[in-house]
């Protein structure tokens, strides 16, 4: 009997599997369990009470609102930018790609500071904003702006390589066949990028909900007004209200798990419908 080249002895297989599982357990499962264990430490009633508290509810609403604005805005921007970069030739293209990456390069705290420096009372555009009745710092619009800024690259970065690899042949073919710009996008481009787009949306959503640094700077921590879930967790934690802090944290963790489940579900359904989606063909 011959052994396949990739066939390792049983103990090596076991060791590698255990190492991987151990790592996942230690860094992913254990913290998750700890969050829920701490949250439920004082029983189910205390857990529910911590979540139904008005400040927590307000933070949840604000987090959902921020994500609800940031994600669609990001999709629109990401698709537009990657379309422009992949399908057209124009001067300054490389500069644009670098600029899109900028929010990844700078610390989120700096991003928050930038908005304070721009729109704060002593800021460059502060007096102008105030004169027009715009309150951008220590307010909800500021939070949304800061979140938009830090999540800016997610969708675009997923789509640019995908669209560049796909080229413009299919779009040209569709155009010659009489399709309008919108038809080309919906029937040809979108189906080709949908998995990348979905992945970008999930990453963007996770970041929008979980963002702490930038949001923390522009928020001003006005309870019930400008606190998102991550900020609320911090406040509770600093007040030694560990159980409540973990209860709210478990909510964030739960949102993350839902996103993950959604992603798996959509991938599974899409995979069943189009088994050869992975194979771009040989030409």
């Amino acid at each position, binding site marked *: 009997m011959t052994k396949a080249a990739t066939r390792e002895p049983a103990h090596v297989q076991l060791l590698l599997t255990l190492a991987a599982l151990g790592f996942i357990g230690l860094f992913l499962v254990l913290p998750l369990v700890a969050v829920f264990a701490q949250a439920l430490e004082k029983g189910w009633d205390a857990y529910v009470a911590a979540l139904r508290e008005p400040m927590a509810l307000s933070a949840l609403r604000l987090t959902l609102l921020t994500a609800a604005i940031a994600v669609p805005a990001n999709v629109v921007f990401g698709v537009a930018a990657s379309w422009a970069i992949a399908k057209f030739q124009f001067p300054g293209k490389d500069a644009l790609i670098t600029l899109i990456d900028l929010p990844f390069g700078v610390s989120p705290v700096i991003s928050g500071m930038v908005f304070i420096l721009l729109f704060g009372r002593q800021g460059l555009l502060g007096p102008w904003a105030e004169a027009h009745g715009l309150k951008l710092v220590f307010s909800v619009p500021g939070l949304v702006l800061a979140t938009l800024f830090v999540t800016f690259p997610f969708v675009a970065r997923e789509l640019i390589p995908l669209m560049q690899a796909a080229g413009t*042949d*299919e779009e040209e*073919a569709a155009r*010659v*066949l009489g399709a*309008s710009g919108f038809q080309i996008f919906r*029937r040809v481009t979108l189906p080709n990028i949908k998995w990348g787009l979905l992945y970008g949306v999930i990453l963007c959503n996770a970041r929008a909900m979980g963002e702490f640094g930038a949001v923390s700077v522009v928020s001003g921590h006005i309870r019930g007004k400008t606190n998102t879930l991550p900020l609320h967790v911090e406040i509770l934690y600093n007040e030694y209200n560990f159980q409540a802090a973990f209860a709210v944290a478990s909510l964030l963790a739960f949102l993350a798990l839902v996103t993950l489940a959604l992603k798996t579900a959509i991938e599974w359904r899409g995979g069943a419908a189009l088994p050869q989606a992975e194979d*771009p*063909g040989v030409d």
Partner: protein
Amino acid sequence: MSIEVRGVTKTFGSFVAVNDVSLHVPTGELVALVGPSGSGKTSLLRIIAGLEQADAGQVLFAGEDATVRDVRQRGVGFVFQHYALFRHMSVFENVAFGLRVRPRARRPPEGQIRSRVTELLKLVQLDWLADRYPSQLSGGQRQRVALARALAVEPQVLLLDEPFGSLDAKVRQELRRWLRRLHDEIHVTSVFVTHDQEEALEVADRVVVMNQGRIEQVGTPQEIFDRPATPFVMGFLGVVNVFHGRVEAGRAHLGPLSVDYPEHADETARPAQGFARPHELELGREETDDGFWATLRYVSPAGAVVKLELADDEGRLVQVESTRAAFEELHPVVGERLRVRPRQVRIFVAPPAEAPPKGPGA
């Protein structure tokens, strides 16, 4: 529908891809644009389609200016070199695409779309693959799907960019014969681009030879092959022996070769080139008036014709093709000196040089 190209020019940066080209394609003809890479043939095709904007000049369909019309309204079918099939759609949906994206008023009912697509898939002999996806097809099958898709919108003009460029030799042979038959069946005005002169000569009604953004010659395959208009066309259409030299006083002296050339009776010599294809040279053992001696270096006897390589007295390579019968009658051996006699030599005299700048001597 006839196609008329008038004075079209296209530049990319400092590179002139198409240089003031004019061309007429009569209704129902199958025309090949042939030339080396970078000769502007694909750019010209894309300009005709409307995928590229010409910097100057006009494209007319049936006498009407098409330059002002968008690609979508030109009514052309375009087959891309790499097929450009929609990879997430089945073969059926690929072919149906052009009908489905029509505005509602002009869109045929679903039943009609189905029968039209099925009919087209039968035409390209792929109706049994309607539910497959492009990635599950071979190259030749993909190319046929691309063709069916282009024909679905009933184009007035069919344009094909290197349609067989990425297929292997045997499939190419089959497909090009098939394209010829298809064209005889549906008779849509067609232009296809190729870099393969053999393909162009075999398939097309009319061949357009392009070089460096300009048209070198337009003609039927026979005209092009028998009467090449320029040294470039001569050299492009297959293996040829070139003899460099000059013409003077009614005679051409071209390396080892010396032949009559009454067209240039002038006493002043002019540089010239003589061209003879391998099958236009004969071999013998007797001294003749025309021709020269050369040494046989190599014989390739496999095939319908026997290919021989000789070297003249200055070591220059001479390629000769001989029929099997003639070869067996002569029965030459490698190393033997043979008389090479041209049955035909085409002579191109260099055009007069640019007038030299006026100076004291002029």
